[in-house]
C-alpha cells in the first residue's frame, strides 16, 4: 500500500532529484497514512534516502541495468510496485523518467499525471496541480485509476528533510529478453558541464549577443555561478548555439532557481518556457523589451559592459563568502 518512488542515480550516486521525489512521496504518503518505499538501480548509499522520509529501499543490483533502459526499468518498477501493493508511484521529470513513465502506465493500467507542481489537492479522488499550455497555465487533473503515477516537475517541491529509519532490501526483478530490444550503443555527454536539466542557475543569451563569438562572457558568468548556459530560439535557429540549449515552448523548459536572460527580448514562447523559474534577471539595452514585464530584476544597458562587470562582482562576492 506504500507510495513507491523511483530514485534516479548516476554512476552509483543518487541524483538530487531522487531526494526531491522522495521528499514529495513522503508528503503524499502522509496524506494517505502510509509509508514510502524507494526503488533504486545500482546505487550506493540507500540510507541517505532516509533523510527524506523513505522507510524502505528496494535495491536492484543488476549489471544488465547499468545503462538506463526505459523498457527494462519500467518492467522492474512495475514489479516493485506489485510487490509493495503501491497505489501511487512518484517519479521525476528527467528525460529518462519521462521516457519510462508512459510504458509503466500501460503495464500497470495506471493513470499518469506529468509536470505536477504541488502535493495533491485531495486524495479522494486524487487531484493534482500540473502545468499545461507549456507553463502558460495550470490544470487540475483527477486520476481515476486504481494505481496512479505522478511525475513531479523539477524544483517544484524542493527538498524536505524528514529523518526516517530506513530498511534496505535486495530486489531482483525478473526481466525478459524483450525488455532489452532497444539498446544504447554510445553516449555523448559532456562530463564537466552543468546541464540545463540539473542546473540551479541558468545563464541564457539571445540575439542581443550579436554572434556566437561573444558567448565567452556568458560562459564565464555561468562558470562563476556554477550555472548552465542556454539560449533563445533565434540563436539556436541561426546555429550560434546547439539546439539542445534552446529554451522555450518548442525547446526545453527551464525550472531553475535563477534564470539570467541576456539580450533576450522575451517572446511569449520563450517566457512560457522559463516561467517556472523562481527568480528571473533580465539584462537588455531595450527598456521596452517584453521580458522586463516578466522578470524580477532588470538592468537596462549594454550587455557587453554589464556582463563582465557582473561576473567580477559575483567573483568578489563568492570570494568573500567562501
Amino acid at each position, binding site marked *: 500500500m506504500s507510495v513507491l518512488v523511483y530514485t534516479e542515480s548516476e554512476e552509483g550516486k543518487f541524483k538530487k532529484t531522487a531526494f526531491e521525489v522522495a521528499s514529495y512521496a513522503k508528503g503524499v504518503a502522509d496524506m494517505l497514512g502510509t509509508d514510502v518505499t524507494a526503488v533504486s538501480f545500482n546505487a550506493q548509499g540507500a540510507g541517505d534516502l532516509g533523510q527524506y522520509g523513505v522507510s524502505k529501499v528496494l535495491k536492484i543490483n543488476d549489471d544488465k541495468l547499468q545503462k538506463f533502459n526505459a523498457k527494462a526499468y519500467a518492467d522492474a518498477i512495475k514489479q516493485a510496485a506489485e510487490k509493495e501493493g503501491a497505489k501511487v508511484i512518484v517519479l521525476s521529470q528527467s528525460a529518462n523518467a519521462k521516457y519510462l513513465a*508512459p510504458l509503466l502506465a500501460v503495464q500497470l493500467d495506471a493513470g499518469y499525471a506529468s509536470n505536477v507542481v504541488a502535493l495533491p489537492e485531495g486524495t479522494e479522488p486524487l487531484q493534482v496541480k500540473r502545468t499545461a499550455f507549456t507553463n*502558460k*497555465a495550470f490544470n487540475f487533473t483527477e486520476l481515476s485509476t486504481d494505481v496512479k503515477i505522478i511525475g513531479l516537475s523539477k524544483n517544484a517541491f524542493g527538498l524536505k528533510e524528514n529523518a526516517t529509519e530506513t530498511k534496505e532490501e535486495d530486489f531482483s526483478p525478473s526481466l525478459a529478453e524483450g525488455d532489452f530490444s532497444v539498446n544504447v550503443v554510445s553516449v555523448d*555527454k559532456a562530463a564537466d558541464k552543468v546541464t540545463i536539466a540539473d542546473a540551479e542557475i541558468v545563464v541564457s543569451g539571445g540575439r542581443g549577443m550579436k554572434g556566437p563569438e561573444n558567448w565567452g562572457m556568458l560562459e564565464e558568468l555561468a562558470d562563476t*555561478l556554477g550555472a548552465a548556459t542556454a539560449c533563445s530560439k533565434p540563436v539556436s535557429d541561426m546555429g550560434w548555439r546547439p539546439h539542445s540549449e534552446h529554451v522555450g515552448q518548442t525547446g526545453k523548459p527551464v525550472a531553475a532557481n535563477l534564470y539570467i536572460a541576456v539580450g533576450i527580448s522575451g517572446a511569449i514562447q520563450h517566457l512560457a518556457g522559463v516561467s517556472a523559474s523562481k527568480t528571473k534577471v533580465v539584462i537588455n539595452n531595450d527598456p521596452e523589451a517584453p521580458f522586463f514585464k516578466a522578470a524580477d530584476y532588470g538592468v*537596462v544597458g549594454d550587455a557587453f559592459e*554589464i556582463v563582465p562587470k557582473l561576473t567580477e562582482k559575483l567573483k568578489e*562576492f563568492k570570494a568573500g563568502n567562501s
Partner: protein
Amino acid sequence: MKILVCISHVPDTTSKINFSEGDTKFDTAGVQFVINPNDEFGLTRAMWFKEKQGATVDVVNVGGTETEPTLRKALAIGADSAIRVNTPATDGVYVAKQIAKVAQDGGYDLIIAGRESIDYNGGMVPGMVAGLIGANFINTCIGLEVEGNEATAIREIDGGKETLKTSLPLVIGTQKGIVQESDLRIPNMRGIMQARKKPLNVVEPVEAGTHSEAVKFEKPQPKGDIKLIDPDNLDELVNLLHNEAKVI
C-alpha cells in the same frame, strides 16, 4: 516502409491562453490552431523517408471535424492520406488507444508522434501507443535512420545525447532536432491543391476508458513589479540576489 504520423491540433505558440465556463474549459475564441510543432518536426522527417526511401506516410488525428484543416495542412506538406478518429481527444490513454487501433489495422512499421503536445503537455501518447501495440519506443528522438528492419536513433538525454539500435515496428517521440527549424515546409499552392484531393478517412472510435480528467484551469499569478538596477550599481543586484531572492 509504412509510416503513421500522429498529428495533434493545438493552439499556435503565440496564442494567449484563456479559459471559460468557470475556468473549466479552454477558450478557443480567437485562437489559431496549428499542427503541434513536435509532430511537425516528425512529419518533416517522414517526408524525407518518403522521398529518399519510398515510404508511404499517413497522418492520424483523434478529434472532431474542427481538426480537419490541420490534417489537410499535413496532406499539403506531403502526407499521402489522412485518418481522423471521430471522437474528442479526452485524455492521453484514450487517444493512445485510438491511435494503437489505427496503427494495428494499418500495419505500420514506424509511428511518429511529437514527444508532447504543446497544449496539455501530457507527454504520454507516444510511449503508451508503443506499450499498447508492443512496438519498440524511443522518446525525445532527434535522429533516425532505417535500413530494412533495423533502426538507429539518437535520443536527447539530459546534458547530451545517446545513440540507440532497435528494430521495427518502432514508435518515436519527436522534437526539434529530428529535423531543423529551417527544414520545415510551408505548403505551396500545388501542395494545397493536391491535398484537397487526397483521402481523409473518418473512422469511428474504439471503446476505451479514460484515466484522467482535467477538471479546472488556473492562470499563473501576475508577476509583481520588476526592480530595475542601475548598470553602475551592480553590487545592488548581487545583494538582492543574495539577501532578497536568496538564490546565490
